[in-house]
């Protein structure tokens, strides 16, 4: 039985590393989940675009806890968060081509999908209740939870960085970020609830995001 080596070789006539195979060559399929562990997010998405379910499983293994945690944090309902998490990864499967590599990280795209889906679910729930009787802090207080041991070092580092950046924001800016991002309130609703003009709310949102972005940039620069 003829086989094809998976070791890269240089060939005189072909491109370096490309091994020409005979028509009857036996190909070794890459179907071992362990092969996906070291792949970059971008490569995983490329494979998902090719309808590779193992690649989606690998992406889920990498970010499923994050997506579930964000949804659980906002909805405070484990069962609904489970459904949202499944929907998010189904969206990744179906809409993977909407990711544009030149426009940002995979995680930015993924968490944007997760946040939008959770916001939709949150608002659907909030519509059924009178917001007049709700305590805003039910949704906007940051609760510290314990990360999994295996991820604790990296997750804690990221968490500490973001937490510090959030704490550095002026109170009024932090408040509009928490009410919108985690609470699901629109800018108009925040304006009404806080008694601040809509323009002021918009300005606080922009300033807050700019400061968070600067904190991220500083962190990248200091880690280089």
């Amino acid at each position, binding site marked *: 039985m003829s086989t094809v080596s998976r070791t890269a070789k240089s060939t005189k006539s072909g491109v370096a590393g490309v091994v020409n195979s005979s028509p009857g060559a036996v190909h070794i399929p890459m179907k071992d989940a362990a092969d996906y562990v070291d792949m970059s997010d971008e490569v995983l998405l490329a*494979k998902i675009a090719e309808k590779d379910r193992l690649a989606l499983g690998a992406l889920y293994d990498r970010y499923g806890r994050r997506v579930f945690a964000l949804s659980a944090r906002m909805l405070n309902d484990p069962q609904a968060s489970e459904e949202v998490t499944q929907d998010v990864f189904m969206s990744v499967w179906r809409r993977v081509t909407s990711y544009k590599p030149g426009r940002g990280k995979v995680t930015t795209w993924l968490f944007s999908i997760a946040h939008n889906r959770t916001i939709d679910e949150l608002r659907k729930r909030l519509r059924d209740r009178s917001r007049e009787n709700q305590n805003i802090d039910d949704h906007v207080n940051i609760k510290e939870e314990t990360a999994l041991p295996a991820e604790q070092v990296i997750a804690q580092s990221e968490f500490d960085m973001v937490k510090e950046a959030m704490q550095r924001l002026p109170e009024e800016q932090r408040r509009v970020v928490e009410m919108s991002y985690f609470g699901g309130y629109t800018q108009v609703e925040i304006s009404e609830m806080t008694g601040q003009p809509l323009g002021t709310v918009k300005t606080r949102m922009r300033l*807050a995001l700019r400061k968070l972005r600067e904190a991220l940039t500083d962190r990248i620069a200091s880690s280089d």
Partner: protein
Amino acid sequence: MNPNTDHGRLFESLPAYVLGALEPEERTELEDHLEGCPLCTSEYDDLAEAGMMLALNVPPKEPPSELRGTLLDAIRDDEAKIAARESSPVELLPQPSDVKPSRRFGWATGFHARYAAAAAVMIALFAVSLSTLLSNGTLDERVEELESQVSSEATIVSSIANTVMDVSLDAEESETTIQTVSRLAIANEQLQEALQTSMVMQKAASQPTARTAVLEKSDGSTDTFGTLVAGHQTSTRGQMMIQGLDPSPPGFVYQMWMTIGGVPRNLGTFHVNEMGYVFVELTVPLFTSQTLEGAVTIEPGGGSMRPTGAEILRLSAP
């Protein structure tokens, strides 16, 4: 930024969009605007990075262990439904037995030649794209040349469809006519897509640091060829289009490789459409040499970590 204009108002809404603080209809309006506004897109990309940080403000939490299996089962079901819907695909090029010759006009028989002309249009368009991509002249001149070429070729396809509609007079032929026009519509859409992607590649190739390379068969035949445009030193964005490839066999994909320092780097896998055409955007590793080398190989579904299959096309700088 003037908030009194639509653009100004939408630009001012970007932070709220990132934070999820827009009403659904506002969100839709902004997303439509983002499709065609580079300034807002750039601002959004910047702010979105900060939005991602907020998601990191929540420590990871373990979902129920069965969720992973449920998700993969749901995807399998989803794929099965799609496969069932596509189990009777429309064959792009009709076989002789598919189309009954017309007793009066013989247009259906003539359709083969006309449809072959539409396919030839694709090939001609691609040849023009390739030559203009590699030619001298300003970007505007090259784009104008492309537009002129595609405009006339698209008119040909459109007139074929009209002719087919006009000569179909009885009920027996009407169903075949609908199928024929549908196929022409597909060809026309693919033609338009080819135009759009050619524009993208023209613009990418005009960047000062861009490098353009050709993909050719090693035996020198010219029925299959393509181009790759990649940034040089400064960008990881790249675009590739190929014309004339046979569809990959079931269970296999085409895979693009770029050789850097003698080592093949995976640029991703792809399939071609029914007309053997593909355009893909790639993430290309930063490279410092002036030359571009690589290959397209055929690989098992999902792709390979290293090239294992036959070399289909070779990439080289002209």
